[in-house]
């Protein structure tokens, strides 16, 4: 059996890895540019399970279990490193602390150990924080981070050893269907035939699927992020400024750099090469209020990547109604990096065993949009 995966991001590579681990000998990954070119190489490296739908929480909990297991095993020896540094959400307003209390109750009921913490505990978790601006905070100790390029390198190495071929510089221009089967991918370097096809092409998935008449409701939304030079360790959690519009965040990645991001108004499909000069000061201002030391730190680079967003902000997983041998893994709406391990596992199970071991994943197939069965958020927060 030959399995063809389109896209060498976190989703495609973990899918290839899981398939190879489950014994598939013939796996090929087709990538138009290079490994990590898409959103994966541009992400903030954060990992958490504290979401507001059962689907996300169940899948992310399993993903975190796998991040840990992988970092202690073969992938860990090759450099994959999950650090359970936690997430901290800051409330600047008193009433936001009440919102946190409601969220904590929901998370706890689904087995995610978030807590509302006071200023003293906050200071010990995030020593350089100016707590005068903060009314309270929510802490997720289960969350963490994993540096993206060491993860990708570990996956490349492990995949190659298992016989997976990764063809970079190979763009898939269209899929070729015969009846209810996809028979080949037409690429910039010729045709590639296969028995099973997995589309994990991130922002490129929608156009590619159109070539066989499949419409997916994703939008590619540009998101901006910058990095400073690396510094000595200052704090481990990813910190989110909840009450400021565009929810600015800061994380000191494992390599020592501070990554700082904030959502600014953006048009979907804008080029990721159209840099916005206003982004840097807009992201830095609220962060510098909270972390005065950051004013002396030097900014190194700024870049843009896509969030591939669906109407209910949950991924599109699994088989497609009209085809027997086509699977999708995209539409992660800004949290596909953390889902990588669970994505790989469930897509591999779907292909080899006919269904995923996590039943919640079956609610995330493409036909949910036709059936009007969008994912239900258990708490809607403003």
């Amino acid at each position, binding site marked *: 059996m030959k399995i063809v995966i389109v896209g060498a991001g976190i989703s495609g590579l973990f899918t290839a890895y899981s398939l190879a681990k489950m014994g598939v000998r013939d796996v090929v990954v087709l990538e138009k540019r290079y490994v990590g070119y898409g959103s994966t190489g541009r992400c903030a490296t954060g990992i958490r399970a504290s979401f507001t739908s059962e689907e996300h929480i169940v899948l992310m909990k399993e993903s975190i279990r796998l991040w840990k297991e992988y970092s202690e095993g073969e992938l860990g020896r090759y450099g994959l490193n999950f650090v359970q540094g936690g997430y901290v959400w800051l409330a600047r307003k008193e009433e936001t602390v009440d919102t946190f209390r409601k969220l904590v109750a929901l998370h706890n009921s689904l087995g995610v150990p978030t807590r509302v913490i006071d200023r003293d505990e906050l200071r010990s978790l995030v020593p350089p924080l100016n707590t005068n601006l903060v009314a309270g905070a929510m802490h997720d100790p289960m969350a963490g981070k994993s540096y993206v*390029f060491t993860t990708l390198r570990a996956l490349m190495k492990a995949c190659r050893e298992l016989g997976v071929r990764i063809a970079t510089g190979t763009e898939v221009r269209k899929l070729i269907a015969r009846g209810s089967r996809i028979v080949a991918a037409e690429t910039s370097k010729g045709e590639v035939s296969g028995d099973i096809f997995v589309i994990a092409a991130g922002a490129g998935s929608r156009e590619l699927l159109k070539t066989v008449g499949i419409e997916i409701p994703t939008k590619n939304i540009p998101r901006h992020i910058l990095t400073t030079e690396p510094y000595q360790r200052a704090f481990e959690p990813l910190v989110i400024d909840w009450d400021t519009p565009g929810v600015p965040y800061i994380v000191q990645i494992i390599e020592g750099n501070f990554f700082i991001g904030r959502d600014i108004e953006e048009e979907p499909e804008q080029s990721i090469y159209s840099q916005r000069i206003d982004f840097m000061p807009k992201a*830095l201002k609220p962060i510098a209020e909270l972390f005065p030391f950051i004013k002396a730190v030097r900014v190194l680079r700024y870049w843009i990547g896509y969030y591939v967003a669906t109407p209910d902000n949950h991924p599109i997983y699994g088989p497609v109604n009209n085809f027997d041998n086509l699977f999708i893994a995209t539409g992660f709406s800004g949290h596909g990096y953390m889902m990588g391990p669970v994505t790989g596992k469930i897509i591999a199970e779907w292909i080899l065993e006919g269904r995923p071991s996590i039943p919640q994943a079956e609610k995330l197939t493409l036909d949910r949009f036709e059936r009007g069965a969008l994912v239900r958020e258990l708490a809607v927060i403003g």
Partner: protein
Amino acid sequence: MGGEMKKKGHPTIVCRCNDVTLEDVERAIEEGCHDLECLRKVLRIGMGPCQGRTCIPIVARILARKLGKRVDELELPTVRAPILPVPVHLLLKSREGEQP
């Protein structure tokens, strides 16, 4: 990075900012990193304060030699703002950041 430092007496450093050695680069190429972007991301070459002005030309030559290509046949990594490291307090003075 610079895992070779301990084993050998005089490693050849190709990226000073991130302590990457010639052996690190050669090994990554053997592992299948066949373009500068891949090497940059896997080894953090070009991600230091000099943004690769020092090391990218050297790494380009090593890669070209290994692949039997000319340096000008290689795709160069993206150059990103702000080009030179800029302290946050200077960026904060920018009027662009004022809230609408």
